[in-house]
């Protein structure tokens, strides 16, 4: 283990401890709920990156969040299924759907894949709007039950939800990190760099891409389901094209090249908009120019900023 790696793991440990102690240091419902949403989007953005490294850019990940959210919310509303189980079922539903769709669409590359995923996001939203007898269309699902442990209801208290989302995020990140560092990850990177060559070396293009797609979508489903039980409300607009674009912004703004890029991106972009206290409708006014500026001047994303600084100071 070299020095760089040791610093990295130390930093990680510090951040995880801060994450766990945060509610003790500052028990403020507003900050907690902000962090909680950031955690949800971090999972989605890291999943977006996992697909991206295989050479496929997707603008449809929110569709899988929607599948998780609707599955789990409908099961708990109509059949009284426990939300804890719902988290898993939501994830599995999204994963199975991703498996099926992935086998078909991941064969198509480049711009075509982008358009297909864009369609996917829009289709999923229209589908929830259309299936009125079950999803209540534009009115959305209300009174989605929250989590409880034995007789302890999570209720409106933010702290249990905060810990739950933190744990979900850490598990998802751990799985995706290990995946990228394993043999599978090497195969995924190889596909992204040159998929024809990779296939000649015995890496099955479609199968590995489907694996990445399914893993990312499974976690998207889980966080989608968590989100539904957390805000007790599910609406088609939460899972259209816009949230998918947001996931992409978080991923790319932070730096798509490294694993921790999307994490930094989510914190900085979401934190910045919160800090500037902009109304929701006007937030794109910041995101738009931010994306353009990052693409023009920081092709490595925000995470490349210190690196650039150090390099120039060494010269």
């Amino acid at each position, binding site marked *: 283990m070299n020095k760089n790696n040791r610093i990295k793991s130390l930093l990680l440990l510090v951040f995880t401890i801060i994450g766990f102690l945060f509610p003790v240091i500052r028990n403020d419902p507003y900050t907690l709920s902000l962090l909680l949403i950031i955690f949800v989007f971090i999972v989605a953005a890291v999943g977006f990156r996992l697909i991206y490294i295989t050479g496929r850019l997707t603008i449809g990940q929110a569709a899988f969040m929607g599948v998780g959210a609707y599955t789990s919310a409908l099961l708990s509303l109509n059949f009284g299924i426990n939300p804890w189980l719902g988290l898993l079922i939501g994830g599995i539903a999204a994963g199975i759907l991703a498996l099926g769709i992935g086998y078909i669409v991941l064969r*198509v590359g480049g711009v075509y894949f*982008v358009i297909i995923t864009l369609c996917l996001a829009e289709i999923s939203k*229209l589908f929830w709007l259309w299936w009125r007898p079950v999803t209540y269309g534009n009115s959305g699902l209300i009174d989605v039950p929250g989590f409880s442990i034995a007789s302890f209801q999570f209720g409106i208290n933010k702290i249990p939800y905060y810990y739950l989302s933190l744990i979900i995020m850490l598990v998802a990140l751990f799985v995706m990190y290990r995946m990228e560092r394993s043999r599978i990850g090497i195969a995924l990177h190889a596909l992204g760099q040159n998929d024809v060559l990779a296939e000649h070396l015995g890496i099955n293009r479609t199968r590995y891409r489907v694996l990445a797609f399914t893993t990312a979508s499974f976690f998207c489903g889980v966080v989608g389901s968590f989100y539904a039980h957390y805000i007790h409300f599910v609406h088609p607009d939460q899972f259209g094209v816009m949230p998918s*674009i947001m996931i992409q912004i978080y991923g790319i703004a932070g730096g798509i090249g490294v694993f921790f890029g999307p994490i930094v991106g989510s914190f900085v972009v979401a934190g910045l908009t919160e800090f500037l206290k902009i109304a929701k409708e006007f937030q*794109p*006014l910041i995101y*738009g120019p931010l994306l353009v500026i990052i*693409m023009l001047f920081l*092709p490595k994303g925000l995470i490349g900023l210190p690196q650039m600084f150090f390099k120039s100071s060494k010269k």
Partner: protein
Amino acid sequence: MNAQDILAMVINGLSSGLTLMLVALGLTLVFGILHIINLAHGELYMLGAYCVWWLSELMGFNYWFAIVLAMILIAFLGVLMERYLFRRFRAIMVPSLVVSIGLMLFLQSSILLGTGMGDKEIEPVFHGQVTFLGTSLSLGRVIIGAVATVLVIAVILFLKYARPGQAIRAVAQDAEASSLQGISMNSVSRLTMIIGSALAAAAGGLLGPVFHLDYMMGFPVLLKALLAIVLGGMGSVVGGVILGSLVIGLVHSFATTLIGPEIAEIILFLIIAFILLIRPSGFFGMELRT
């Protein structure tokens, strides 16, 4: 269901297909020359509509004059976009997509900031109905279709016979070879953006009196235009787009009337996804350029 209903559906479909064509033509031209999917193209349409609203309702210009002025203004915006952004990202997929998404978000929210939430309407210039083969049609729709047809034909003639138009086609065929022939890549891509933006603005201005203006109105149109050019074959300059837009317009009009609006769009998207999977080069057999 009688013959008149069917005729009404066909004419509605053709009319929306023709205006869609204006947006799709620009999108495919830009894709053919710059190899960029400009996701902000729908916003040029939206800005065109707002520009016409601003010029005709607030400044009191004549509607047609307002459309022409809006086309010029939006074309100028397109030139700026091309000069400072798209030119740098020619044929690099990820950054160019991200930049165009950035532009899309920025233009949408700046319009929201500039004009507020409330409903904006452009006063229709033409009222009344015309009767055609026993079906009564709104005069406004017919005129929109006619103007769109004239514009499309003008663009086709320009691409076919004018020297700058021929240069555009040459670059779309082989950028390197046409550079060697002395065609300036930059001026061709600027010209393409001018044509594309002006057409999108015209479509927005024409359809403005039909719908309410809304800062999000560009995105659905962009999606449909994308579908049209996918159907016709990406980057194929003219033929495919024209057929694609008409098919999208007709399918949409029929499905909306027969089975309802949301499921109509779902069907449309599914058809397109299917076509992309079996024939990425487009349904009408245009050549795929990479």
